């Protein structure tokens, strides 16, 4: 079965990278699906008599004077004293070429050796270390797949070989593949959640007033914040260039280049993350207001808002996408979900960045005033800052 379009770890990493970069996708192409080069040409060999390869389990000998076509031997040695007018695949055994023995095509041996005692192989002699890597060669792919199926039948396991066809797509992966991939992505998503949660916790602990201000700005002026964030996204590179030129031209500013050049991208990245966290906080706060019966007094604090927002915005949808990936047949839905998460996170980061800019990183409340304020009562423990009381929960 073709596994075209299966989401890989790269998807998740791409998504996460995009989230961190936010509106400032400075990098080049986002998706780089591997496109293998043209396959190697099959070595010339006379056509084998018959179509499908003969499949044999256990030791086998092609006797002197005997001629055969493509041959697959699983779980035993193949001794060639006669002539094989095609390809040979031996799995779990050795290929022994006795004096005068000939293989007119290619020879592939998995978990074994090619022992030449005076015979001849006209094509390529290849040994591989693992059945799962049975063939990456166009010339041997079909016969190798047959060998794998034979071994699977013999050992009562599903085929494990991953045969690469002419376009480089991998065939015959077991159905454990999506589960394994899903688990890997799941682990990555959880790690990502821990990163965001950790950063958010630090931000709340050390800079909650600033986070509140940015969050309030975003809630009070979402359209303005979105437009400013979008504009910032377009201007970030030109501004960087202008900064470098200005510092260079001013001569005196040249030493400052050493600081400005590395610091600028870092500052942009920090602003994006700050914006995303503020957007998550705003979403969590809004959710708390709407679900007052759920968010009782103990849960009305910045930590809860932040974690709720992050979960709703990114983490839970990503986890769902990972679970969908595990099913294999629903992986396309998982891809759609991931794309949606990426779009939502992009929008949230853009708007959050705009709010960061409007509020001067949370130091100015010009655009943070909302009519009516929050309907929730303040948390007596967390909301002890008198200057912020009544403006948010």
């Amino acid at each position, binding site marked *: 079965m073709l596994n075209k379009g299966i989401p890989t*770890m790269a998807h998740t990493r791409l998504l996460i990278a995009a989230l961190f970069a936010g509106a400032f996708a400075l990098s080049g*192409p986002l998706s*780089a*699906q*591997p*496109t*293998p*080069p043209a396959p*190697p*040409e099959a*070595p*010339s060999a006379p056509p084998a008599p018959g179509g499908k390869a003969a499949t044999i389990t256990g030791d086998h000998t092609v006797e002197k004077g005997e001629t055969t076509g493509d041959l697959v031997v699983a779980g035993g040695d193949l001794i060639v004293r006669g002539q094989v007018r095609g390809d040979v695949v031996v799995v779990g055994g050795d290929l022994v070429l006795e004096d005068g023995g000939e293989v007119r095509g290619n020879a592939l041996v998995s978990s074994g050796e*090619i022992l030449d005692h005076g015979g*001849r*192989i*006209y*094509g*390529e*002699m*290849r*040994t*591989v*270390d*693992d059945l799962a*890597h049975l063939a*990456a*060669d166009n010339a041997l792919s079909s016969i190798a797949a047959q060998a794998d199926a034979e071994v699977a039948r013999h050992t009562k396991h599903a085929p494990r070989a991953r045969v*690469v066809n002419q376009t*480089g797509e991998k065939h015959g992966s077991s159905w454990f593949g999506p589960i394994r991939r899903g688990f*890997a992505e799941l*682990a*990555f998503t*959880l*790690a990502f959640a*821990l*990163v965001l*949660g*950790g950063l958010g*916790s*630090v931000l709340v*602990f050390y800079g909650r007033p600033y986070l509140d201000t940015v969050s309030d700005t975003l809630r009070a002026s979402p359209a303005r914040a979105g437009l400013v964030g979008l504009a910032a996204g377009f201007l970030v590179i030109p501004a960087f260039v202008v900064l470098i030129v200005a510092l260079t031209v001013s001569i005196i500013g040249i030493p400052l280049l050493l600081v400005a050049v590395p610091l600028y991208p870092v500052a942009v990245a920090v602003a994006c993350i700050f914006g995303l966290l503020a957007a998550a906080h705003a979403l969590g706060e809004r959710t708390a207001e709407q679900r007052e019966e759920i968010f009782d007094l103990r849960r009305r604090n910045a*930590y809860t808002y932040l974690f709720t927002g992050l979960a709703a915005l990114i983490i839970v949808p990503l986890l769902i996408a990972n679970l969908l990936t595990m099913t294999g047949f629903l992986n396309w839905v998982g891809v759609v979900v991931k794309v949606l998460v990426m779009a939502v996170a992009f929008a949230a980061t853009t708007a959050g960045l705009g709010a960061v800019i409007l509020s001067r990183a949370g130091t100015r409340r010009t655009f943070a005033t909302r009519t009516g304020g929050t309907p929730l009562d303040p948390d007596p*423990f967390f909301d002890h800052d008198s200057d912020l009381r009544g403006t948010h929960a």
Partner: protein
Amino acid sequence: MRKQILMAGALATAALLAAVPAHAQSWRTVNSARQSSGEETLHLNVEYGAGRLNIAPAKKNGLLYEAQFRYDEERFRPVTEYRKESETLTLGVRSLDKNGIRLDRSRTEQARADIGIGAAIPTRLDLQFGAGEAAIELGGLSLKDVKLSTGASETRVRFGAPNRLVAERVKIEAGAADLRVEGLGNARAEKIEFSGGVGSTVLDFGGQWTHSALASVQMGIGSVTLRLPQNIGVRVDKNSFLTSFDSNGFIKRGSSYYTANWDDAQIRLTLDINAALGSIDVEWIR
């Protein structure tokens, strides 16, 4: 409460550091070989992007080549293409990524290719090596032509034994490389061409010289050390910009530098040096 929260944050940070999974890698080893079948001239192309590359004469007689590749199958695939009609063989690994090879030390340091070349088959070798380390022993082969291109690498090329044929040319192109070529006399080349971009290069012209040769050295920025045998006549034509030249052992006549034995030498090496910025040092070998 704040302490608990701080601790939770610290734990979360520590956990995330431990939880970030490493890039999935599937390292594979493939052995490949082919018996020779009366090839008149083998056109051998070796393409290797990043990792450790070893090339030497094949250990077994009668082989066109023998090779072992260790590679990350998620990112590369081995290449062993042979076209009988044109007698062209291509060996190496190719990236599955259309954007080429991304250099990542942790992912390439395990990558390795060991290639043995059939010694008896007349061969035109075209070797392209990207980044990493290469140890290339070409001594004792039957080389008609050698072209070697290396990028940001540490490369050692050696002609440890005389070439079985007279080579038309040995051409070496180096990017930002630390390159050492030993025993160029054993290459038995009529023409030796070296061009380097940036880096440090040692060109050792030692070995068993059987005939005179022309050599050109073009260097951008960097140092070139020429190790020259005393038993052949050497002439240096130098065209440089900001490059120092150690002329010890030479006699200047006109615009060229000659060894004292130039007029009487049966075997002569004429060196044409073009260098932009750097130094040209000369070491004499017996």
